[in-house]
Structure formats: C-alpha cells, structure tokens
C-alpha cells in the first residue's frame, strides 16, 4: 500500500517514472540494433542519432524552431477561431444543426490530400503550414469546448438564476469557468495533432522545417538524419504537451481534484 501510494502520489515519482520508461525504450532500441546487427541505414542506433545531431546542432535546432513556430501559430489560431465558434454553436440549436455537419465533413477530409492544394493557394511560405495546423487542431478544440459549455450542472445554473445573475454573469462567472477543464482536454489533444500537421505541410512545398528535413533525408537515404529529426519532433511534442499540463495546473488548481 505504501509503495503504491508513493509511486502514484509523489511528485518525484511523477518525474522519475517517465524517465525510466524512456530510458528503457531507448535501451531496447539500442539492444535490438546490436543483437541483430542492423545496418545503420536501415535502423540507426540511438548513439548514431545523437552523433548526427551534434554534427550540425545549429542547423537542426533552427529547423526545429521553424516547425515550432508554425505549430504554435496554427494552434493559437485554432483557439482564436475554434473557441468562439463552439460558444456560438452551444447557444443556438439552429446554428449547431447548420454548422456541425460542415465541421464534421471538413474534419473527415484526409489532411494529406489538402496539403498540395494549400501550396497552390498560398505558396511556399509559412501560411499553408499554419493553415494545415489549424485544420488539424480545430475540430478537437471545438468539440471539447462545446461539450464543456454544455456540462454546467443545472444546480449551479439554478443557483445563478436564484441570485438574479444576468446572462452575461452566468456565462462568465459560471459556464465558461466550468468548461475550462474540458477545454484544456481539447487543447491537449490538439497540440499533438498540431505537430503532425506542421510536418505534413512541410512534406509538400517547404524549404525549411523538420518535415522538410525528413523528406530530404529520405531522398538521400540518410536514415540517421531522419531519425534525428523525428526525435526532435517528439521532444517538441512532449514539451508542448507538458507545457499545457503545467499551464492547466497553474490556471485551474481546483480541477486537479476530479482526476
């Protein structure tokens, strides 16, 4: 009992456990390349990848920066557009019926198919990438925000009514606040998709970014470079995700209790 509670509750364990998991996975990877003596151009070992990164760290980090910027811009844009749309949808059944199928349709389009079109429409700059990220993140943000706005307990709504609160007060002091944990869940789903979106967009018509690096390394059979780029992508994803988790802890301390 004491052992379990330490492993689940201690903040030290919360940091140490993921690291143990990560180290174990990397060891397994390394073990596989050694035991089966796999050629580095098929599957490079962790060490090869690390060496590759330190060959040209500045270059790779700058590509990471490009992808990171696109990801964050697209994600923020998705919030700025998605949250208000969700708020409007929740207020009106008519609008919900009008807009929801459209959203579903847009979401069901394979985003890879759209990537070349975006290039045709917007050129080779960062815009098609930002828009791709937006397309990827938009839906989970809208859904979770709408869901959150609908989840206000009737009891609390009745409390606000009995206190003679205006509609605006009810919205800001109750509904929106109550929806925040669910909105954040949407953000956390969206941020991982955002990273994927930026890579997809960079596969097509880009001259910068980690997606571009991966695509180029495929063409020149530089598997190790591809792995280095992929590793950077995962690190970026993880940092963005835990950044959101941290923000949630700071902004919504009351919501932790529900877990």
């Amino acid at each position, binding site marked *: 009992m004491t052992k379990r509670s330490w492993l689940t509750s201690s903040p030290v364990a919360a940091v140490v456990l993921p690291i143990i998991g990560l180290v174990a996975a990397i060891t397994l990877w390394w073990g596989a390349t050694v035991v089966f003596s796999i050629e580095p151009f098929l599957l490079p070992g962790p060490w090869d990848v690390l060496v590759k990164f330190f060959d040209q760290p500045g270059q790779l980090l700058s590509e990471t920066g490009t992808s990171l910027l696109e990801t964050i811009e697209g994600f923020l844009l998705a919030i700025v557009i998605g949250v208000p749309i969700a708020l409007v949808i929740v207020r009106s059944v008519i609008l919900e019926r009008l807009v929801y199928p459209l959203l579903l349709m847009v979401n069901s389009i394979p985003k890879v198919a759209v990537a070349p079109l975006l290039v045709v429409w917007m050129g080779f700059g960062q815009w098609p990438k930002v828009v791709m990220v937006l397309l990827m993140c938009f839906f989970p943000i809208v859904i979770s925000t709408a869901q959150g706005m609908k989840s206000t307990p009737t*009891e*609390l709504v009745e409390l606000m009514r009995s*206190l*003679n609160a*205006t509609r605006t*007060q009810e919205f800001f*002091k109750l509904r929106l606040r109550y929806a925040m944990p669910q909105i954040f869940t949407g953000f956390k789903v969206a941020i991982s998709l955002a990273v994927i979106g930026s890579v997809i967009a960079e596969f097509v018509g880009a001259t910068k970014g980690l997606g571009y690096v991966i695509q180029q390394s495929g063409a020149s059979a530089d598997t190790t470079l591809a792995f280095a780029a992929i590793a950077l992508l995962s690190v970026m994803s993880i940092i963005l995700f835990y950044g959101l988790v941290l923000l949630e802890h700071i902004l919504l301390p009351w919501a932790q*209790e529900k877990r």
Partner: protein
Amino acid sequence: MIRLNGVGQVFDGREGSVTALEEIDLHVRGGEFVTLIGRSGCGKSTLLRLIAGLLVPTSGSVQVAGEPVTGPRRDVSFMFQRPALLPWRSVLSNVMLPVEIDKGRGGRGKAEYRDRAHQLLELVGLQGFERRLPHELSGGMQQRVSLCRSLMRDPQVMLMDEPFSALDALTRTELSEELQRIKMELSTTIVFVTHSIEEAVVLADRVVVLTPRPGRMREVVDIDIPRPRSLGQDAHLTEVAAISGRLHALLSEKADVRPVDEVPR
C-alpha cells in the same frame, strides 16, 4: 410575507402532462418558520421554486411581501440540497458571490460586505477556512458555506430545499440549532423542505403536509413547543414524538384523491 392562492403547476413531459401541484393555498407570516414534508415527488421542490420565482405557476398566484412574484428577488434566498459551491472559488469568494452579482448590476461595493462574510463564516465555525477551496472541505462544512452565502444579502425570506439531508446526524443537529438561532436573531421567514419528520417538527412553527399525485396540502399542523428546541440530548422528546407520530400516520395514508394523474395527450 408569502401568499399562495390556488397555486397549481402542471409540467408537460414527453409522456403527457404531470400535475405536480394543485390548489395550494398557503399564507406564511413574516418571521414564521414553516416546514414542508411529504413523500418524494409530491412537489415540495416545485413549491419552493415557485416561491423563489424560478418557475411560473400554471395557475393561481404567488406573492412575496405583497408583490406578485415575477422572477428571483434579491430579498429571497434559495438553499439547495447540495452545497452548489463554485469549485474554483475559495470559501470566502463563494460567500461573496451574491453581492458580487449585485455589484455587476450596480449594487454597492464589495469591501463593505467582506466584514459581513467573515462574520457569517465565524458564526458557523468556519473562521480560518476562508481561503480553502470547496473540495478541501467536508460535506457539512460545504453546506455551512452555502448557508453563509444564502445569508449574505440579509434575506427576508429563506427557502431551503432539504439543506441538511446529506449530513450526518450530529452535524445536522448542530446546523439546525444554528439555523434556529439565526432565525430568532434576524426574524427571517423560512420555508424549509425536509424528509425527516422529526426535523420538521423541531424546526417549525407550522408543518405543512403534502400528499402526492397531485401535490395537495393534506394538513397544516401548529407546533407549540417552546424554543430553542433540539434534536440532541435535551430534546423535547415526548412532545416531538407525539406530533411526529401523528404526522407519520398522515403521510402513510393513501392519497384520498385520484390515484394516477398522468393524463395522456
């Protein structure tokens, strides 16, 4: 203070309409403590919500302080069965919610009320907990916060819907003593719904017995036991027991009117 004349409430549901209340005539005097008892579903909550202005009666009229009720009033407070605290607000800030809402609508400033909030929290023994979040409190403490919140606007009328039913017996006794004290001090008019017959008797000047389907007033019983009364050690056990017994009998009688009221459309 509260006057209900021929009040009826019919709900239109999916499977036809339900008559929740019928022909309710009730006059609650200023400063009076009325408890409502009746079986589950006989319309007690509906009656409170009508007085609170959260619901418009389908027939009859509701008056508070001589004025017809058209919506929630500032001088009427509603206390729910569950604490209904906003989970992101501290205890103090939850208690301040009513005056904050007033301020948003052009009421007086917040600071003047802060002392009042502290005073109320102290009254219910929650001094030192002002900064805690609701989930850090026990159910009984949360219900005390809710009580403070409903006292914040110095209401003339307090409507309480089974406010203590989720509490253990001891806390319940304490809180009902507290409520009587507050009531005697402030001469607030209270309408209090409960499932516990003993609680109804101990608290009330008058007990209103409702029968279900449709909800009607079966009887109104005056309680003449001197105050303060208690459910605890020095309880007025014999008197309370005698009246409770009668109320038990009333409640377990079959409703004397139509057995089923679901009218198909």
